[in-house]
């Protein structure tokens, strides 16, 4: 018997073609699934993959994402064709100063559209570690390249993603052979030196069976002029029992940088990833960050933090995907918003059919630092197995006057107290970077944002 529903008041009854009422949530589920399922273009030579991506680029319009009932993330105004891909012929002799001369397994720097510096510990090179531009990897290591390139990244969910796959240049490639345990980090840096440009970035990293590494990716710019695009693609494959501590730190400065990036991490059997993106600035950020536990016994900790200020617009879609069980997940993000910024965190737990004994938890904590800022949290859970646990939680925070008073009675000024509160808010995640120098870099950048926003935070605190 066909399902019938009473006509809604005011609707035109009996009109032919009235769509059947949908089950609540169906549209939402379809949207989420679309966000996950695009078409890949891996497993083929690079030229072929670029051609597919170019066709998608020409077919697709610039994207707009509806993130909540209140606002959308749109790139429809971006004149993408006018942006220059700036190249540099010269390479740098030295690593960037901000890395502070810290011991590194390897360093790769891309400035604008060119790789500007590569260094790899000589002993590691002898043991089979590869660190080079992705262009060189496609040429010199075609088997590895084709086995992994775009294995989990798609090319046609939106125009920027297609552009990235079609137009990337330079790029970073890291391969760590089986059985290596490395303490010193690999550092990959993307810098934008001038506005009005497009940087199509692509990092491909593979940690083979049983190896263990630390990997850092930085996205940095100073205060640039004019609309600028960073279209990033990042893929990390952890083979069986591999381990990685991955940190991604982005701060695109005070210019009009649009950062539309997709990162995926695949965790194979008994592998483990600790992943922490820190999004610390950019006019418009749209990040799709996805971690897929693809092998039995795979486990991960997915941390993240962001701080949106001024009129910045930040939109994070974080995906905790379990393709098989038993598997574990632990997602914990924290975000703050000041000024007139807009920030949205959408967190999705997806447990595929048959991924029994997957256990995961997603939490998001937010702190609002201005009456004119908006901060939304949208958790979703899609579960296709019955012997699993998947839940989410979170808190919405504002400045606590009692806490400010408490610190004032110890001699701290109001701005000092606010700084302690906000730093304390992020601290549980920052310490997990597990590297004093990197931790200090993140703390300093958060401190600088707070100093810049001190007046508006004070007004907000007093207005309540």
């Amino acid at each position: 018997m066909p399902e019938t529903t009473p006509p809604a008041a005011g609707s035109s009854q009996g009109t032919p073609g009235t769509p059947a009422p949908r089950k609540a949530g169906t549209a939402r589920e379809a949207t989420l699934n679309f966000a996950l399922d695009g078409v890949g273009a891996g497993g083929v030579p690079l030229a072929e993959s670029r051609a597919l991506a170019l066709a998608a680029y020409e077919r697709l319009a610039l994207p707009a994402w509806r993130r909540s009932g209140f606002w959308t993330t749109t790139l429809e105004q971006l004149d993408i064709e006018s942006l220059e891909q700036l190249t540099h012929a010269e390479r740098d002799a030295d690593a960037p100063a901000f890395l502070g001369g810290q011991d590194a397994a390897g360093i790769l720097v891309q400035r604008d559209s060119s790789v500007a510096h590569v260094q790899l510990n000589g002993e590691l090179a002898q043991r089979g570690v590869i660190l080079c531009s992705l262009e060189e990897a496609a040429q010199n290591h075609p088997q590895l390249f084709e086995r992994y390139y775009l294995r989990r990244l798609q090319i046609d969910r939106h125009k920027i993603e297609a552009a990235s796959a079609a137009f990337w240049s330079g790029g970073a490639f890291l391969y760590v052979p089986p059985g290596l345990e490395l303490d010193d980090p690999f550092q990959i840096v993307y810098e934008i030196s001038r506005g009005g440009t497009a940087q199509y970035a692509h990092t491909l990293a593979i940690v083979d069976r049983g190896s263990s590494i630390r990997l850092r990716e930085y996205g940095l710019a100073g205060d640039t002029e004019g609309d600028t695009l960073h279209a990033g693609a990042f893929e990390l494959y952890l083979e069986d029992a591999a381990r990685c501590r991955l940190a991604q730190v982005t701060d695109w400065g005070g210019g009009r940088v649009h950062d539309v990036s997709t990162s995926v991490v695949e965790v194979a059997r008994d592998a483990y990833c600790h992943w922490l993106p820190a999004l610390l600035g950019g006019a418009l950020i749209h990040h799709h960050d996805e971690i897929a536990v693809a092998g039995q016994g795979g486990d991960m900790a997915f941390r993240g933090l962001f701080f949106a200020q001024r009129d910045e617009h930040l939109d994070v879609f974080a995906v905790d995907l379990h393709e098989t069980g038993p598997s574990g997940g632990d997602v914990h993000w924290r975000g703050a918003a000041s000024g007139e910024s807009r920030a949205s965190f959408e967190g999705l737990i997806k447990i595929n059919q048959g991924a029994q004994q997957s256990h995961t938890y997603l939490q998001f904590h937010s702190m609002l630092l201005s009456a004119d800022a908006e901060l939304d949290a949208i958790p979703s859970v899609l579960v296709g197995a019955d012997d699993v646990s998947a839940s989410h939680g979170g808190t919405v925070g504002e400045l606590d006057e009692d806490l400010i008073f408490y610190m004032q009675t110890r001699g701290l000024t109001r701005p000092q107290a606010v700084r302690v509160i906000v730093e304390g808010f992020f601290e549980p995640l920052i310490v997990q970077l597990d590297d004093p120098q990197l931790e200090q870099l993140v703390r300093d950048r958060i401190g600088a944002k707070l100093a810049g926003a001190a007046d508006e935070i004070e007004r907000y605190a007093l207005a309540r």
Partner: protein
Amino acid sequence: MAELQIRNLHVRTEDREILRGVDLTVRTGELHALLGPNGSGKSTLANTIMGHPSYEVTEGEILLDGQALNELAPHERARLGLFLAFQYPVAVPGVSVANFLRMAINAQRDEPIKVKEFGSQLDHAVRLLDVDRSFTSRHLNDGFSGGEKKRAEILQMAMLKPQIAVLDETDSGLDIDALRTVAEGVAKLHAEQGVGALIITHYQRILDYVKPQFVHILMDGRIVMRGGPELVARLEREGYDPIREEVAANA
């Protein structure tokens, strides 16, 4: 030698007048106890001395060494040498006890304190309060038991070395061992640093360990009786009701 003077203090919150003319003077080296039933205005007085924004002074003055504090922000009062040990200390997530102490000490100095000097002061203070040094690497008041919170308050007092400290019901919610440790800590600080203290209490138990020279009884927003230690003994025996009747008869 510092002198905290409270003159004819009237304080209201949004809905009502709580203090209705309080006079009180506490000098460095003196131990005062302020006793009173629930709702008499004890915590209001403590918070007002430190400048809590929710309490409005409608009349009267708070002076430290003759300088009026009424218009000063809480951190300025702290820097002049006042300290409040809270009845309900607030958690400071993400900040260790040691880091918070260092920030608070540095807030009161021009030059940051030297690592070694800070370390030896902290060692001394943790011994005084009978806590493990590892206690100072925990996040301040975050997940602390009632006793740990009160120890952390006195630990801060020991490190900040105020001229005058107000202890707001530091004895509430403590078991007997924690109470003894905290109270003995206060007594030692008094002996060592000569701090002047206004000990606010409802239960008087803390006064078994810290012997006040001056005792004040607060009722309905006024100090209705003053005396020495004998007043504590009388309260112990009789409770507040006979005092209330006596005050009413004399009014």
